[in-house]
């Protein structure tokens, strides 16, 4: 680490902050009156319903079910997917195996060299946020970083009990107790861009389709 630069920058910061002190004392915050913005109060509804509504509003697909295998069966059949990458969560393999689908290639958390071959990536999500329709993928719990990103379709299974109401609550839960994992990803719908004339296009570098299966208790 370059100590000279570090020292120089920190010194520069301290010196300039000190120079500011006499002016700081004179600051009268300007009373620019802010317009009052009225807004809609969200309806009371279940976390699952809110999540579904918000995910669908960003072009994600949401399936609420007690039978994950059945949901996977339908999705994969519809997609006619042949090469499937799954995470190292044993539940995923179990659910997929139970579908009885004919799959040409199955990869378990394929690495960077291989991941580009696959049509679909299936993972779980460690949590979800109802107010935004967001999935939380925590890399410490599962190997899913590439398969939730590279294949054109991502299917994520999240337990209904892991859907939290707000962003704030979710951030707080991520932090409580444990060390943050090296890579946490929030996913809200399929990838998109509006870089060309602000016209929305779905499916850029990340997946073009996102399916979220919410697993309800039986």
């Amino acid at each position: 680490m370059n100590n000279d630069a570090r020292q120089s920058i920190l010194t520069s910061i301290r010196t300039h902050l000190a120079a500011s002190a006499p002016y700081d004392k004179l600051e009268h915050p300007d009373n620019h009156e802010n317009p009052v913005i009225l807004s809609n109060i969200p309806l009371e509804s279940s976390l699952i319903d809110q999540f579904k509504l918000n995910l669908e509003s960003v072009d994600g697909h949401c399936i609420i079910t007690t039978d994950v295998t059945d949901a996977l069966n339908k999705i994969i059949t519809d997609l006619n997917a042949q090469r499937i990458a799954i995470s190292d969560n044993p539940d995923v393999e179990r659910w997929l195996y139970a579908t009885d689908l004919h799959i040409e290639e199955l990869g378990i958390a394929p690495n960077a060299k291989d991941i580009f071959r696959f049509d679909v990536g299936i993972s779980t999500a460690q949590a979800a946020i109802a107010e935004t329709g967001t999935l939380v993928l925590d890399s410490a719990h599962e190997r899913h970083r590439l398969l939730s990103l590279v294949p054109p379709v991502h299917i994520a299974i999240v337990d209904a009990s892991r859907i939290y109401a707000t962003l704030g609550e979710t951030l707080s839960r991520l932090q409580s107790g444990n060390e943050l994992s090296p890579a946490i990803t929030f996913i809200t719908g399929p990838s998109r861009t509006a870089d060309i004339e602000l016209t929305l296009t779905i499916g850029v570098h990340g997946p073009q389709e996102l399916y979220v299966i919410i697993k309800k208790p039986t």
Partner: protein
Amino acid sequence: MNHLSSETFRENARAALADTQLRGALKNATSLFGERRKSAAASLPNWEDLRSQARAIKDDVLSHLDRYLEKFVSEAEARGAKIHWARDAAEANAIICKLTAERQARIVVKSKSMTTEETHLNDALEAAGLQVVETDLGEYIIQLADEPPSHIIAPAIHKTRGQIAELFTAELGMPPTDDVAKLTNTARITLRDRFAAADVGISGVNFAIAETGTIVMVENEGNIRLTTSLPRLHIAVMGIEKVIPRFADLDVFLKLLPRSGTGQRLTTYQSFITGTKRRATDEGPEELHILLLDNGRSRMLAHPVTRQSLACIRCGACLNACPVYQQVGGHAYGSVYPGPIGAVITPQLMGIEKTAQLPYASSLCGACREVCPVKIDIPRLLLHLRGEISERKGSAAERVAFKLWSRLMMSPRLYKLSSVAGRLLQRIVPIAPAWTKGRDLRPIEARSFHDLWPIK
């Protein structure tokens, strides 16, 4: 690359005003962005509170920037990140070039980073023999076109789809099409193998959390995730002002940034990266290097009015709201950072020698201040800079004119005489050709209000 210079802002603006395609593209983009931002803000009942909170957090950070930076560094290092400090652009580029050389890298993929545009990193890497691939669609487009970005968050917004289509046909051999989905898909396919082949991924940083040593990046496309998870080496470049105190503060900033920038509740992806992977077999880069760039930022701490420049979270809302930007676009400013925020930070980062026009290129309407999620008082900053510029670099003629003006205003007699003189002069001399070229000018009243008083 032919960068326009801020020194020729007036001429740049004139050329922009004559470019009908550009003006059409700008009108479309800025009004859509503006409408979306407005709706998104209106959907949060506590929008104004959030702005105040965000500003309070930033004020706290900036007033103690050294301590928060040191905390961020120690937390990040404890988790495997390597930290580099760069006093200026040249030092930043040298550090990054050295890192890539040490690892015999050949291909670099980049996700959008205004900070690396500021240092002209791509030029330095290419001079060192590396292939640099911009992966954000807008950045990819301008890279093909060999142009600088014209907007902080949508770099190619000055281009029509027709222009982009022509570009793709010329540079990529794509059959001509106006279909935005096809254009996007071409970019996706073309860039996929670059991601796979890249040795190094270079990203920016939206927020750096002091408490946990986490860097946070937000995006819609997925290219940041690819850039920061496929290559073996990830270099994250950030201005020193990007640090925020606590992980929980993200609740405030993640509500403000997407809404202010694109009118979204949340962008598609947020990546929270805390150090390097824990086990060798884990996915992700082997190395994480974080570069902290000063390049003139620490100087801005020296006065409360200028210090607020560093609160900027690079949302671009001020650009979309600015009547000047709406007319002339980003390139005219001749700076990496255009629009209202550009007009105030460019002179501070680069010095006023060549950037002195920028703080004057504003009607001081205040629309920028109204939309800024962190309540930067840009008009006040503009006035502050105008004060500095008139002191250090002002035109002697203008100074004399205002001294004369001051004398006139101090004396009712002289004031009255000046209007008599004005009435005479206006008949003989076109007092303000700059005005009358486009607008009629009312004649000075034959009798002033002072003359008319008392009024029955």
